[in-house]
């Protein structure tokens, strides 16, 4: 494998199962069909003349943390928006759980078991923790044609969700406004990890956090993996990627540069792939 030439396109075998067969040319271990939960197959997303994502094929396994790295504008966010149903790919296919997935909205993706933790967290500050956990999935008690919120059940279940993931929150009835950055992130992640989701996508989960809070959130992400969930994260933090992930995909200007098993790569190699510089150049600069 020659890292000085990272633009080598991924194998362009158009048939339906590319990554399943011979993906070894870009350093990734070929996954077996059984444990690949998400398979992105030659997906492109163009906005008019802007080619945000071009022919990208990646996969993610259950029980693994998969990272996507790349510079700003590399197309990472557009790619995950295709997966989470915000965008519909211009071409290419997404397979989820072995079935072709065509989501026309985030709700579709959510129903299929894909949850996204947005960078903004999508929490409502003036609502309580449990109201946020159940936002738009409220449990109701029915009285004939009327239905009323079942607050007790939602409070209990929110509490269970958080304690299952060992998230420490003083009271489930507190407003989210009063929570720290780490707690808010933990609430958003716990919400995403509930509801029978199988893939949790996180966009820069620790970008705004301090050292201790980052550690807490990382523990939480590791717990999701231990639970057998597939986790897909976008991160700019190489240490974090090396610490957490099992598989890394590198993107540059809308294309996939390559994929690596995390234990077979190094931060330097990833930087080289991201920037297109050679490892020697990077070593000299350091």
């Amino acid at each position, binding site marked *: 494998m020659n890292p000085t030439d990272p633009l080598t396109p991924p194998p362009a075998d158009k048939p339906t199962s590319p990554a399943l067969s011979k993906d070894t040319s870009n350093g990734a271990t070929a996954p077996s069909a059984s444990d690949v939960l998400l398979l992105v197959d030659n997906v492109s997303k163009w906005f008019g003349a802007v080619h945000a994502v071009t022919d990208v094929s990646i996969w993610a396994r259950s029980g693994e943390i998969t990272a996507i790295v790349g510079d700003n504008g590399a197309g990472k966010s557009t790619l995950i928006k295709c997966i989470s149903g915000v965008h519909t790919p211009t071409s290419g296919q997404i397979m989820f759980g072995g079935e072709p997935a065509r989501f026309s909205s985030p709700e579709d993706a959510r129903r299929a078991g894909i949850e996204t933790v947005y960078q903004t967290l999508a929490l*409502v500050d*003036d609502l309580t923790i449990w109201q946020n956990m159940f936002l*738009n999935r409220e449990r109701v008690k029915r009285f004939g044609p009327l*239905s009323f919120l079942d607050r007790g059940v939602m409070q209990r279940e929110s509490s269970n969700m*958080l304690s299952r993931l060992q998230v420490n*929150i003083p*009271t489930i009835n507190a407003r989210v406004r009063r929570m720290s950055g780490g707690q808010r992130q933990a609430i958003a992640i716990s919400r995403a990890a509930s509801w029978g989701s199988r893939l949790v996508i996180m966009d820069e989960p620790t970008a705004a956090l301090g050292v201790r809070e980052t550690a807490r959130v990382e523990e939480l992400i590791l717990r999701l993996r231990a639970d057998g969930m597939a986790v897909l994260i976008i991160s700019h933090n190489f240490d974090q990627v090396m610490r957490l992930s099992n598989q890394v995909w590198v993107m540059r200007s809308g294309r996939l540069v390559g994929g690596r098993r995390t234990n077979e790569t190094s931060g330097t190699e990833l930087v080289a792939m991201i920037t297109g510089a050679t490892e020697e150049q990077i070593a000299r600069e350091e």
Partner: protein
Amino acid sequence: MSRTTTPEMAQQARIVLVLQQLRDPGFWADWTAVVALVLLVIVFGIASPTFLSWGNVQAILVAAAILVMLSVGQAYVIMTAGIDLSVASVLTLGSVVLGQTINRGWGIALACVLAVIASTLVGLINGLVIAKGKITDFIVTLGTLSAAAGAALVLSNGEPVTVTSVFLLRLATGSLGPIPYFVIIAAVVAIVGHIVLFHTRFGTHLLATGGEPEAARAMGIDTDRVKIAAYVISGFLAGLASILLTARIGAAEPAANTTFLLNSVAAVVLGGVSLFGGRGTVVGPVVGALLLTALVNGLTLLSVPVFYQPLAVGIIVVLAALLMRYQR
């Protein structure tokens, strides 16, 4: 902590929480209207012996009924981070529709229904233009304020009409036991408003839409629909209130009731509803409406000249707004 919480600990935590709340200026900001109402009742109660007589309390409650209903609708709209400047005009329009229908001999039931439909329709137009047309609430409802007032003038040819209806007369003067019908209707509106806000999915979605529209949309809430619903509710309640207004004055007047608009916004602000949306109660605005009505009533009892009343209302609203800065 949630893993090891015992009932005793929870009890203790609750007590600590209450004590913390009392020291927090934010708590007082949230309950401005209640605190002010209690103070007002004490002051006026001492200054004028008739203020707290049952007859006067009844009079205050009856006089507050229309404002209470408008304020509940206004509160819903303001909680979506909007504002409904058209409520008072819609009230007038509803009243004129009612009066004109009766005068054509179409019967009181149909007249009331048409009044409510016309008002609700204006609310629907407000909501649709704001949510779908993406035009600022302020401009849209300023437009419908004028349009509804104009429609009322056109329909009535600018002339007030006397409305004679046994039903309306009974509505205005009758009572169920000691409680006037007006008060019962306003109370039902307030209670239903409270239940919808805090015990239905729609209520939660309303607060989410007003507080963090991006987050609400990300969670799949149709924020446009929620907004439209809020304006429809405001229009509907203005329509109901127009029946009470017509019954109270025994006539349908095309004259604008701007005081109702200002007071409905004032009641909502006094009631601790954030003008930025996303937080508030129904109880707050209701108490705010009672406060404003009691203030005017008390000043009248003390023979303060009528001209001073708007001045007093204005000062109280601005003071309340100052206290609101401490809102958490």
